[in-house]
């Protein structure tokens, strides 16, 4: 199940032979597409209506009068320095991705390719980690940040998650199939042990690193609960925190709150459009969530 090739072609099935079944299949798929896409389109359209059109009952779906007013209001709001919030989210996400990829591949390589005392114990601990939900340990994690004086700091969003048990597990699985001959050849050529990892193993981990990186990025970008606990200063908020704050300020102004939602959704959706092949394949391969 774990190594299915998603591009493999299927033999013609019933649906393709029986025209009635085929129409039915496409109809159901189309309904599914509509249910998936219409809410996105609906809030996009809402964000493009003038405030007066929003409150009309029954509402319009497409704007009768197109307006960028809501976006202008957000961009010109001195309390919403958008660039600052995008920067916060980007710094935290990129920081976590870079560190996680390094620690996961390094530890994954060691667990895959070396035999040493205590290995099973240490790897067992990694496996146990996989089972612990974040909500179970968030209280002690918070108390540690208090001791380290990292509360209300963007560092507090990166430092507690620099080593990812799932990442180590995933990397170990991939590196297990890496040929030992290449590693030995590099050693004979005089490479240091770190050199073998950095110059021989790492460059061959493109696919799993990309998958893990994308997922870590999205998880951090969309994370809400931990930033909600850690961050208290407005300027240090990440985008999801900004969004709930902004909504609490402008509850009934749906043109504004939907425009703000679009602004938070857009970067990830753009990334997704370019990388969807990797992302969807990554889920199928790893069962990552």
């Amino acid at each position, binding site marked *: 199940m774990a190594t299915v*090739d998603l591009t493999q072609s299927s033999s013609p099935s019933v649906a393709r032979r029986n025209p009635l079944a085929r129409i039915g299949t496409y109809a159901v798929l189309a309904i599914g597409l509509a249910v998936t896409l219409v809410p996105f389109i609906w809030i996009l359209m809402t964000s493009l209506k003038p405030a007066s059109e929003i409150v009309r009952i029954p509402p319009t779906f497409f704007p009768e009068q197109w307006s960028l007013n809501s976006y202008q209001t957000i961009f010109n709001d001195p309390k919403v320095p958008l660039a600052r919030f995008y920067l916060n989210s980007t710094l935290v996400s990129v920081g976590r991705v870079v560190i996680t990829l390094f620690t996961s591949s390094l530890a994954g390589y060691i667990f895959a390719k070396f035999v040493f005392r205590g290995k099973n114990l240490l790897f067992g601990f990694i496996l146990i980690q996989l089972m612990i939900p974040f909500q179970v340990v968030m209280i002690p994690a918070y*108390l540690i940040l208090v001791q380290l004086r990292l509360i209300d700091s963007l560092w507090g969003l990166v430092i507690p998650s620099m080593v990812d048990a799932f990442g180590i597990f995933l990397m170990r699985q991939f590196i297990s199939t890496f040929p030992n001959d290449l590693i030995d050849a590099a050693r004979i050529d005089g490479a240091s*042990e770190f050199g073998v990892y950095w110059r021989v193993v790492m460059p061959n981990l493109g696919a799993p690193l990309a998958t893990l990186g994308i997922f870590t990025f999205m998880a951090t970008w969309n994370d809400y609960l931990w930033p909600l606990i850690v961050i208290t200063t407005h300027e240090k908020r990440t985008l999801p925190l900004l969004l*709930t704050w902004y909504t609490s300020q402008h509850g009934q102004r749906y043109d504004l709150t939907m425009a703000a939602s679009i602004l938070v959704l857009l970067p990830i959706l753009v990334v997704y459009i370019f990388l969807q092949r990797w992302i969807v394949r990554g889920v199928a391969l790893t069962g990552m969530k």
Partner: protein
Amino acid sequence: MTQAAIAGDPGAPRKERAGLRPGQRTFVWGALIPIFLYLGVFALFPMIWVVVLSFFSYSPVRVGDGLLGLGGRNPFIGLENFTSMLADTQTAQLFRTSVKNTLIFAFLVLVVNLAITLPLAVLVESVHNRVKGVVRAIYFMPTISSAVAVAIMWGYVFHPQQGLLNNFIKLIGLTPPKSWLTDPGAAVFGVPLAMVAVIIAYVWQDFGYNLVIFIAALQGIPHDIRDAAQIDGASGWQQFRRITVPLLRPTLLFVCTLTMISSFQVFVIFQVMTGGGPQNQTRSLTMDIYENAFRYQAMGWAAAMSLILFAMVLIVTLVQFRVLRTDWEY
């Protein structure tokens, strides 16, 4: 699972030399010692400390006199946090409500999710490859979207007057509910309407994930089997019921477990869409933990609740292992 250990596999770790050469020792322990020291602080310590805290009446705003703020005005109270879960106090009632809500939510999400994703995966798998890729990519879109934005989006879709859903219901000639998210008296088959709304929004966001896993698993089923059944005259439903579902059992089990476990941990959509209301009908366990720990600073009590959450996750996981041990040969 560890096929790498089979002799002759070019990727297997070298077994003949037990232990490491000096240069390797420096590398291995030079890397692992910092990593595991770090995990000791940020993973092992929290696991132990959440258990320790659950035996104390601990609040970080009070000053204790013992180790790490425990003792003194943060006294050891034994199992009182756990026994008081069954007490007749308002806090305990709220806790029990939140556990009940979380179980209802997780169970219904599982049922609705599987009822949608399994048949849908069969349909997606049956269409032309190019269509399949596009359809799958679009179905997966909500799962990568920010949960906060999704909660705000659906809060507006459920808006009684301006919302998309009620206007659609009116359009097809039915009477929409007066309020989806705030009417404590409204229910569907005994499930509060607000809970139904949260489940709809959550399944909408989450279904693409299981769908992708099912599609991948379906592609792993050899086509000969289905072709043979078809030649024998099996209908589409018979093929689904007698071949597809049994062959998918290991995947089904994996998906059920993961869906259950992640439903136990849902926070954002409850917090942002309903805030736990109306009358705590959608207050989830994670919301209750968050509020007690970080709003009321009752961290000992919240730690005990976290352990209940952990127990729920553990039970589901153990059931999965138990079932997995049965023979899967077909």
